[in-house]
């Protein structure tokens, strides 16, 4: 039983890490709560579903359509709405409310096109899964865990080793000094939204491979991702992955010992403990100014 709980914790943690890293990457330079990211995540699953069921495209192409849908939605929001708000020097509260509004409108649009009922893009028949030390894991879950690991490494390399990554970190560290150094902030935001939204799309598709989904799939995933970002520390990709793993494990142990209805409560209790005793998270730096 313990092996299964640990494995379930790893799987849950991996899904939180995927959405957490994609959200954290965007939050790093922009410093506002991009609520609509939840819909960008769901768009990956629904884009893939549309490509399979409406266009009859093969799965590999449908996945690309799903990732593309998320990327286009994320970029459209950044280029049309957020950029205009930045030009007007809008406060982070205005950004938060706008983003929340966008989330509601877009989630309802998904409901309008696809219906509110539960959908599935599972491949093949439901199988028992592979046995690892007495615990069961499905191929889709193996894909989630391995992709989460691969993307943690890839995003870390992007931020530390590439010119684009350095520009993202510079804007995150001191946006005005980045302007002064000749960094084009709009370009940095465009690229982080492109990568972050594509990653959210990948996360949405992977989760949809593993379980059924509905238009509200984004909100819970986003909340867990955000908790992972706060626990892990803003700016630290490894921290986010660790934070996600901690929540995943704690939730699964909670399900085992006290009951599944406490899953979300456990995550938020951990969040509270971190906010009170280690607000900078596992590996993050002390935040000079907190914005919503």
């Amino acid at each position, binding site marked *: 039983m313990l092996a299964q709980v640990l494995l379930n914790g790893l799987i849950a943690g991996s899904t939180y890490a995927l959405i957490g890293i994609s959200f954290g990457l965007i939050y790093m330079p922009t410093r506002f709560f991009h609520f609509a990211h939840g819909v960008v995540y769901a768009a990956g699953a629904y884009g893939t579903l549309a490509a399979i069921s409406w266009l009859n495209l093969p799965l590999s192409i449908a996945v690309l359509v799903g990732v593309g849908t998320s990327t286009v939605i994320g970029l459209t929001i950044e280029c049309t709405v957020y950029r205009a708000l930045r030009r007007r020097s809008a406060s982070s509260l205005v950004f938060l409310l706008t983003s929340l509004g966008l989330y509601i409108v877009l989630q309802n649009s998904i409901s309008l096109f696809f219906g509110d009922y539960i959908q599935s893009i599972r491949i093949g028949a439901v199988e028992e899964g592979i046995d690892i030390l007495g615990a069961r894991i499905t191929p889709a879950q193996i894909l989630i865990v391995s992709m989460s690991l691969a993307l943690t490494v890839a995003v870390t390399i992007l931020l530390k080793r590439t*010119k684009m990554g*350095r*520009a993202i*970190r*510079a804007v*995150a*560290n*001191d946006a*005005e*000094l*980045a*302007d*002064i*150094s*000749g*960094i*084009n902030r709009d370009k940095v935001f465009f690229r982080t939204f492109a990568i972050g939204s594509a990653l959210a799309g990948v996360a949405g598709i992977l989760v949809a491979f593993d379980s059924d989904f509905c238009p509200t799939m984004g909100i819970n995933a986003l909340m867990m991702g955000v908790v992972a970002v706060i626990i892990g520390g803003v*700016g630290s990709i490894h921290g986010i992955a660790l934070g996600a793993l901690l929540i995943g494990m704690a939730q699964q142990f909670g399900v085992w010992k006290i009951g599944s209805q406490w899953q979300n409560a456990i995550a938020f209790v951990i969040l509270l403990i971190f906010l009170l005793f280690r607000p900078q998270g596992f590996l993050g*730096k002390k935040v000079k100014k907190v914005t919503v």
Partner: protein
Amino acid sequence: MLKVERLETGYGKKQVLFDIDLEAAEGKITAIIGPNGSGKSTALKSIFGLISVWKGAVNYKNKDITNRSTQANVKDGIAFVPQGNRVFDEMTVLENLEIGGFHLPKKSFQTELNKIWELFPELEKRKKQNSGKLSGGEKQMLALGRALINSPRLLLMDEPSLGLSPKLVTFIMNYIRKINHEFGVTVLIVEQKVREVLEVCHHVYSIKLGKIAYSGKPEIIKDDKDKLRELFL
């Protein structure tokens, strides 16, 4: 090299600068002095495009650059060193310089980097260190290095002495003189440490309540305590 004509600007609805005319001659150091809150830093920021100019014009190398983006200014050879030893304190010394030389091709970046190491050997020793852990003087060197790596023709400096010990102020002023003399960089510097800046500059402006209160050679006011008091009170 830089000519500012009838510049007016401010923050929100509050006007800070009124009808400012000033020039920074090529190859020279020009200083702007004045009391706290007089609008010195605002003048520098509006020249560089960090805040928008309401009225008037900024000309650089006989081109109108009023309200041009900071990116365009950096690419055109203008560098800005902001107040308070500001560096990217979550990044290493080398990464700070990489950000400074963001638009340079790899090969010329390496050449420019070597020049910075030569100018500030202390920084090379600490290139892998997190810049947040540098001393005040080292941070100021890094801030200068970040600006100089693009080989600017015009260097705008906002109170480089702020927060530094008197010994370090002299040290930094000597560096400014060296940068101007050896590299031929035109410097426009805003400074509160009047005595020190008057030693190194070729021309000085004083701004008081958002208006030019004095323009002339530093030698004329350097030893005139009454005039200096009048400019600062």
